[in-house]
Structure formats: structure tokens, C-alpha cells
């Protein structure tokens, strides 16, 4: 747990530091900004080194935390996303609340491995709430206007609502087994009955909110529209990773066929709805933020399809981790490019605002092009393998169940609908426009952030094994 502990303790220290730093007119804003960002990066580096030198014992034990593959993968995903998100925050963090902002962000990053390593319902819930609570604070401080307040309240209420669903499901699980230990619960899945399925469906409802699955997606477009770009990036990534890792943790192993008969169709329907709603609503959007929110919903649909394959085949959860890694690179990269355009004085609210951006801001536009191609899922980008792996998992499950193949085809058609609106954004970038005003302000941190994303997106295509 060393990396997670480092991050959470470090985050708390940064929170406390805000009390000391903030003082009077003599305040050195730039120094504080750089200092906070560097301190966060150092914390991340320490966490990464601690994770690197850790020796995993052969016997993983039965305790609150277990360091199996899911824990390691979630830690990697959190550190990867954390690096990009901190770089994105460097120049976009709200200056009045630097300490709170970075403290909350670091705690959120640290909470993902807590969820990933949890071997107990209590610690799992703790990890999930460690992501939610800082989110409320951050939503409130990054944008202090009416839209920001609306987004915060919406997110807060819905999040509490979803947590209660999750807790209701968990209480059934506890009632069924008499233990909160996940291994004990999973050992008892063999004798599961309808009630267990109900409990699992309730748990899925609770987590569906965090991964923005239909019908718990309503907040996403409003919140994405009402908050800053960096915050939208954070919200489209960290809760999603935590949600899916939690799903894998709770139901990844040991479900018996009677439970699968109920859980898998629910996931199928949910996944198909999530894809269709995400893609159709995104196609209809002219507002870029809402479009990205719906596109993030659609990606959740693909991931849920991968989840069904995993449940039935006991296939590698690596499908999900690889998808999330590719998703991190392409989505956060896209947000970083938009952030750079915004920081340079451009507008990024509507799709039309990007018109001719290639001639105004070439570097960011090339970055966006790579990210969009990756989101479409064409070769030469990591997005291709991400979709490929989901297809592969689904087809492998399809040897026993033709419905699975049909779902793969549904996903393929959804990918085409998605290609339509991504192409709309992409072609806007290269439109020849009259407003030929180059945007010259340079933000090194954002540039580095999206360069990392673009390079990862391209490199992962050639070596998908390390994705």
C-alpha cells in the first residue's frame, strides 16, 4: 500500500499547506503554483518508485488489501492518469485554492489503488468515497459561477444517491454471506441464489454512476459543460477507472451460472443502451463539451461489453485495463489540447470554435487529430487495439453464446456512428477559415501533457503488450 499511502498522506499535507501558504498581498502566485505542481509531481514520483521496488509476497493473504493483478494494474493506471492530469492542472488550477486543488487531486489519484487493492467491501467503499468527496470540493472551487454551482450540486446529490444504491447492494451481500471479505463472498458465489443477483445488480447500479453508464449518465453533460476542461478530464477518467476496477473486484471471479443468467443480460442491455445513448446524443451535439461527455458515456458502453466477456470467460481483465490506458491517453490528450487552446485565448465551447484551428494552433491540432483517430479506432493508434481487444473478448465468449457476437456487431456499428461525429470535429480543425489569428501563447506543461499522450497513443500501437 506504500504508493497509495504516500499519495493520500501527501495530499493531506498539501491540503494543510494551503493554510500556511495563503497570506496577504506578498503572496507569490507563480511560485506557489509551480511549487504545488512540482510537489505533486514529486509525490507521484515517490509513489511510482515505491511501487516499483515493492516485493509482492507469494501468499497474498486474506486481509483488507490484496496485491494481485488488479491492484497493480489500477496503480499503474492511476499513476499514468495522475501524471497527465497534474501536468494539465499546472497552468489551469484555480489560483485562489491551489492547496485544496492539488491536495484533493492527489488524494483522488491515491484512492484508485485503494479501490484496486481492496479485498473487503468496507475498504472498497472507503476508496470509492475517497474519490467522490474530493470531487465535490474540486467541482466547487474550479469554477465559481452559476454553472459551476449547478454542476457541483447535481454531482453531489446524484453521487450520494448512487452511493446509497451501492451500500444497499453491499448490505445484501453481507447478509447473504455474513462477512465483508470479498474472498469469502466469492467463495460463496457457488451457492448463490436470486438474492445475490439482486445484490450484484444493485452494486452495479451504484457503480454505473461512477462510470457514467446509462441510466445514470444524466449528470455527465451538465457537469462537463459547467466545469473547467481539466476537471472534465479528471471526471472522465479517475471515477471510471475506479468504477470498473471495483466491478472486477466484486464480481470478477466465481459467479455461478444461475447468477450469470441474470447479471449478464443486465450488463448487455445496459451496455447497448449506454453505447446507443452516448453515440446518438453525441452525434446531435454542437457543444463540444457535451459531445465529449456523451463520447465518454459511449466508451463506458464498450467497456461494459468487455466486462460481460470477462465475467463469462474468466478472460483476462487486461482487456479492460488496456482499454482504460488507451482511453486515458486519447481522452486526456484531447482535453490537454483543448486546454492549451483555451489557455492561448481560443474558445473551445462549441465544435464550430475549432474551425481552422490547424492554421491557428498547429501543434495542438495535430495532437487532437491523433487522439480523434485513436477514438475512432483506426490503426496506427492505441485506440485500435483497445477496440480490437474488446472484440476479441466478446468473440471468445461468443463460441458459447451467439448473443455475444451480436453484441460485438452492435458495438461495431456504434463505433461507426462515433466515427461520424469524431470526423465532424476532425474536419473542422482543417477547415480553411477567415479568422486566421494564430494563437501564440505557449504553455509548456500542457504541451508536455499532450505530447506524452500522443506519443503513448502511437507507441502502444506498435507494442500493444505493454499497454
Amino acid at each position, binding site marked *: 500500500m506504500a504508493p497509495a499511502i504516500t499519495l493520500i498522506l501527501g495530499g493531506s499535507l498539501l491540503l494543510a499547506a494551503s493554510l500556511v501558504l495563503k497570506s496577504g498581498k506578498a503572496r507569490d502566485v507563480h511560485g506557489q503554483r509551480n511549487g504545488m505542481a512540482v510537489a505533486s509531481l514529486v509525490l507521484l514520483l515517490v509513489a511510482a518508485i515505491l511501487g516499483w521496488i515493492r516485493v509482492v509476497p507469494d501468499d497474498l493473504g486474506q486481509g483488507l488489501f490484496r496485491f494481485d493483478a488488479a491492484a497493480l494494474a489500477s496503480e499503474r493506471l492511476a499513476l499514468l492518469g495522475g501524471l497527465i492530469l497534474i501536468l494539465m492542472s499546472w497552468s489551469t488550477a484555480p489560483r485562489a485554492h491551489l492547496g485544496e486543488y492539488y491536495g484533493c487531486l492527489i488524494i483522488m489519484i491515491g484512492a484508485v489503488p485503494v479501490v484496486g487493492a481492496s479485498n473487503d467491501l468496507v475498504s472498497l467503499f472507503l476508496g470509492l468515497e475517497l474519490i467522490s468527496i474530493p470531487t465535490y470540493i474540486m467541482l466547487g472551487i474550479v469554477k465559481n459561477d452559476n454553472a459551476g454551482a449547478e454542476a457541483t450540486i447535481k454531482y453531489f446529490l446524484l453521487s450520494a444517491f448512487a452511493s446509497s444504491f451501492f451500500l444497499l447492494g453491499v448490505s445484501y451481500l453481507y447478509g447473504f454471506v455474513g462477512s465483508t471479505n470479498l474472498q469469502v463472498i466469492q467463495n460463496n458465489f457457488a451457492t448463490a441464489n436470486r438474492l445475490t443477483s439482486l445484490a450484484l445488480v444493485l452494486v452495479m447500479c451504484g457503480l454505473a454512476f461512477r462510470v457514467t453508464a446509462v441510466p445514470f449518465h444524466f449528470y455527465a453533460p451538465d457537469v462537463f459543460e459547467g466545469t473547467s476542461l481539466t476537471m472534465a478530464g479528471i471526471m472522465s477518467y479517475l471515477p471510471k477507472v475506479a468504477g470498473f476496477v471495483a466491478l472486477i473486484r466484486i464480481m470478477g471471479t466465481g459467479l455461478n451460472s444461475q447468477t450469470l443468467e441474470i447479471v449478464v443480460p443486465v450488463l448487455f442491455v445496459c451496455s447497448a443502451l449506454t453505447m446507443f445513448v452516448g453515440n446518438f446524443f453525441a452525434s446531435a451535439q454542437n457543444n463540444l463539451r457535451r459531445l465529449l461527455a456523451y463520447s465518454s458515456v459511449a466508451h463506458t458502453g464498450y467497456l461494459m461489453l468487455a466486462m460481460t466477456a470477462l465475467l463469462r470467460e474468466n478472460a483476462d481483465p487486461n482487456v479492460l485495463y488496456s482499454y482504460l490506458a488507451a482511453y486515458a491517453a486519447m481522452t486526456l490528450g484531447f482535453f490537454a489540447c483543448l486546454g492549451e487552446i483555451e489557455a492561448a485565448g481560443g474558445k473551445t465551447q462549441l465544435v464550430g470554435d475549432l474551425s481552422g484551428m490547424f492554421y491557428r494552433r498547429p501543434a495542438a491540432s495535430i495532437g487532437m487529430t491523433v487522439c480523434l483517430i485513436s477514438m475512432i479506432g*483506426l490503426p496506427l493508434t492505441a485506440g485500435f487495439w483497445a477496440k480490437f481487444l474488446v472484440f476479441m473478448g466478446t468473440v471468445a465468449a461468443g*463460441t458459447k453464446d451467439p448473443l455475444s457476437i451480436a453484441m460485438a*456487431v452492435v458495438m461495431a456499428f456504434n463505433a461507426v456512428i462515433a466515427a461520424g461525429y469524431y470526423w465532424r470535429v476532425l474536419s473542422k480543425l482543417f477547415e480553411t477559415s477567415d479568422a486566421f489569428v494564430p494563437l501564440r501563447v505557449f504553455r509548456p506543461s500542457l504541451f508536455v501533457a499532450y505530447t506524452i499522450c500522443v506519443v503513448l497513443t502511437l507507441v502502444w500501437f506498435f507494442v500493444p*503488450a505493454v499497454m
Partner: protein
Amino acid sequence: MTLIIPLLILLPLLVGLGMFLAGTKAESLVGLALGASGLVLALSLLLLFQVCGAAVPDSATNGATIIARAVYAPDWLHIRLPVSVGGHPIYWHLQFGADGIGALLVLLTGIVGFVTMIMATHQIRERLVSYLALILITQSMLLGVFLSMDLLSFYLFFEAVLLPIILLINGWGDKAESLKASRKFLLYTLVGSVPMVIGLIGIALQSATPVRPSTVSLELLSAIAKENQLAAINASPGDALNSVSTLASKDQWIAWILLLGFGIKLAILPLHTWLPTTYAAAHPNTTALIASVVAKLGVFGIIRIVIPLTPLALSTYAQMLFGGLGAVAIVYGAFVALSQSDMRKVLAYSSISHVGFITLGLMSMNSEGLSGAAIQMFNHGIITCSMFLILAMLEQRRGPVSLDDEDCGLASIYPKLAVMMVFFTLAGAGLPGLNGFVGELLAMTGMIRVSGLFTAIAVLGTVLGAWYGLRIVQRVLFGSNGEGKSKVHAQVNGDLKATEFAPLLALACICLFIGVRPQDSMDLIENDIKRIVSVSEPSSKAVHSEIDQLAQTQP
């Protein structure tokens, strides 16, 4: 010699990418692009000779039906995915190589790429370097498809062709239409090709057994497919588990998904609507490349993947349907071509009609039909490329060419261009002695053993083909009153320059050569076709008992 294959793919890719990144200002790079393309043409000729000279393994080592005669498959060329399926980790070797059919299409790509680039230096006025760079990249991706010997790299290149093509359509096409057209092209192609990956994964995963990990190598997969098919055909009548219908229905979804993908690419009848829009919106020089090579990817996919790997499913469910669609496409394309007045659209629909012949040949699934289809891929590529290039030159001199108001006898102004146009129109119409005749005759000979009706419809199509071809010649070159005089002498912009005439002349020589001596090109593909037929013909006979009755009842 083993380096020819990687060079063929990498050389145009690297030069193209370098030029594309260098930007539009570096006009001096035009020579480099032409040089690179010429080198690709030379390399493709070398590859052709290497394939010709290679010893043909007559009875394959393991019964495989797809065997490369020039191979490039080093050990480091593999893909390891972070998942395992059925207990085996996914570790796929990628292989590149060329058999006769592949080598023929590689040559076609080399020729068409070189010629379109020479013409582009006359045609394209703005951002010429980027245009040439994109053609080079397209060429590289196309060569990748034709040279790949495994499902994965086939699919990767097949998908990757989209990107440069879309940029070509969008960047240099008709200002008003090209954005919409390129979007339509993208979505149509993706509707076919994204589901296709499911089918390809299905084939790969089905090859895995508890003792054998999954593979994507076409050679191994085709051997497995042949083995399964033999077991099914030779199964005892009561053995329901191994019967023909069981195997066919097991592979059914794969065949359908793949046929959808390839069908959209080759613009089979109900899926063809992207084609006229795209051809009309793109610059005719770009269209020459798309129509001659990119549209052949669908045919190539069927002959390379669908026929050898899912023969029983194909002949059970789709052979007659697609054969019928091909026959209808021939007549439909011809009639629509007759009723259009925009010459871009006339050529687009004539392309649909000609591809119908190729489909007909493929769906006969016997040796005449398949060789006809393979040869016709090459022939149609050469002919349609020349026609679109001629159209490009006409448009450059006179603006959009419409058959309604261009009533002016251009032959007297542009005599060289007129000669070339008549020549290629005749080649397209299937005049004996030119290359179009060879392929179409073979395709129909193959089809008549399967279905007399479809062949009868196709024969009707050849008449219509001559009709719309001569209609173009009459309206554009000689005028409806036959006076042979131009009414608008003021717009004359000179006949073909030597650098415009020479490539067309070279293409004409190829047409004539294949028309007079088809045997040379037949020898090249004969062995490959024979091997494919060894699975395709038994399967179509096992399913359709009526096949060959027409041939047998003849005196």
C-alpha cells in the same frame, strides 16, 4: 532479394511521411516523390519476376491453399497482446509475401501510383507536394494489403488505407461536395470494415485447439479450412456433427460479416451508393487511384480470405445471391451510365458495371471464373485508371465535361487524346484483342457452368457496355451531328504534352499485350488459382448439385 517486400512497403511510406511533414513549401521535393514512385514500380517488377521464377510448390506441404512464393516473415515481426484466450497467450506472427495474384496487384499498384503521380504534376496546382506525399502513403498501405500473408496485417493495412484516401478526397476535391463525400466514404467503409474485424477474430480464434494456439497465418488457416471441408464433404451421411450444413452454418456469420465488408468496398449493388458520390466529388486524378486499386481491395479480400477460409458457408448461403447481385450490377450500372450526362458519373457507374463481371467470376468458384476475376482486377484497374486520367486532362482543358452540352467534336482539337480515349473505351467495352475481353470472357465462361441465367444477363451487359462507351466517344469526341468540328475554338489549351501522352501510351501497350498474349499473365496466377479452386469447386458442387449440368448437356 528478400528485402524487396519490406522495401516496397516502407520506401513509399517513409518518403511520403517525410514529404508530408516537410510541408507545402518544398516544391523541389516533387522529383523525389516521382523517383520514389518509380523505384516502387521497379521493385514491383522485380518482385513479379521473383515470383515468376520461384519454384512453385505443386502439392503444398500441409494442404494449404494460399502459399507465398516470395516470403518476408522475420521472427521479430509479431504481435503479442496482453490477453490470453482459451489458455493460450495471444502471440501472432505477422507474415508478408506474394503469390501470383498478389504480385499482379502489386504491379498494378506500382503502375497506377507512378502514372497518377506523373499526371498530378500537370493537374494539381496547389499543395502538390502534400498531394504526392499522400499518394505515396496510399500506395504503401495498398501494397501492405496485397503483400500481407496473415489476417492481422491484412486488416491493419486495409483499415489504414482509409486515412490518406480521405485526405485526398477532402483536400483536393470539389470544394462544395468533397466534405460530404469524404464523410460518406468514411462511414460507408467503416460500416463494412469495423464489423469485419469481428469475423477475422472469429476465424483466428476458431483455429485454436487445446494443443494448438490460435494463428492468423493465411497459410495455416487455409490448410485448416481445407481439412475441415474435406472432413465435412467425406463425412458419412448419418454423421450430423461433421456434415456440410453443420460446418456451413458454423461459419455462416463469419462469411456474412466479411462479405458485407468486402462488398461495400467493391460496391456490390445495394451497397454501392458511396461510389458515385465519391467519384464525382474527388479530383479525377484521385479517382483514378481509388477506382483502379482501392476498389479492388474488396475483390482481393474475397479471393484471399472469404473463398479459401470459409468456402462452404460462402457457397451455401451467398454464392447464388452474390452471383445474382453481380449480374444485376452489370446491367444496372450500364443503364445508369447510359442515362447520366456528367462524365464523372458515367465513368463511376461504368465502374460498377465492370466490377459486376469480377463478382460474377468470383462467385462461379471454379478455375475459369476465378482466373477471369483475378485477371480482370488488373485489367479493369488499368482501363479505369486511364479513363479517369483522360477525364482529368479534359476537365483541366475545358472544365466539367457533360455529355449534354459538350456537343463539339473534341477530336479535331485534341487528336492524341481522342485516340487514347477511343482505345481505352474499346478496351473497356471488351473488344477482342484488348485486355477487357480476356477477363470478361473468362468470368462468363466460369459462370455459365454455375448459372445460365446470370451469364445471359451478363452478356446483355457487354452490349450495353459498348453502347455507353461509344456514347461517350460520340458525344465528347465527335459531336452528335458528326461534323468533327469544335464550336468553341477559343478555349483550346493544346493537345497532350509528351509527358502526358507517354504514360497513357504505356498503359495502352499493357492493354494490348494482355489482350494479345493473355497466356503470360495466366501462367503467373495459374498455380494459385488451381489451389484455391481445389477447395472452392468441391464446396460449391457439394452444395449446389445443379452445377455443371449446362456444360454436360452440350453435345
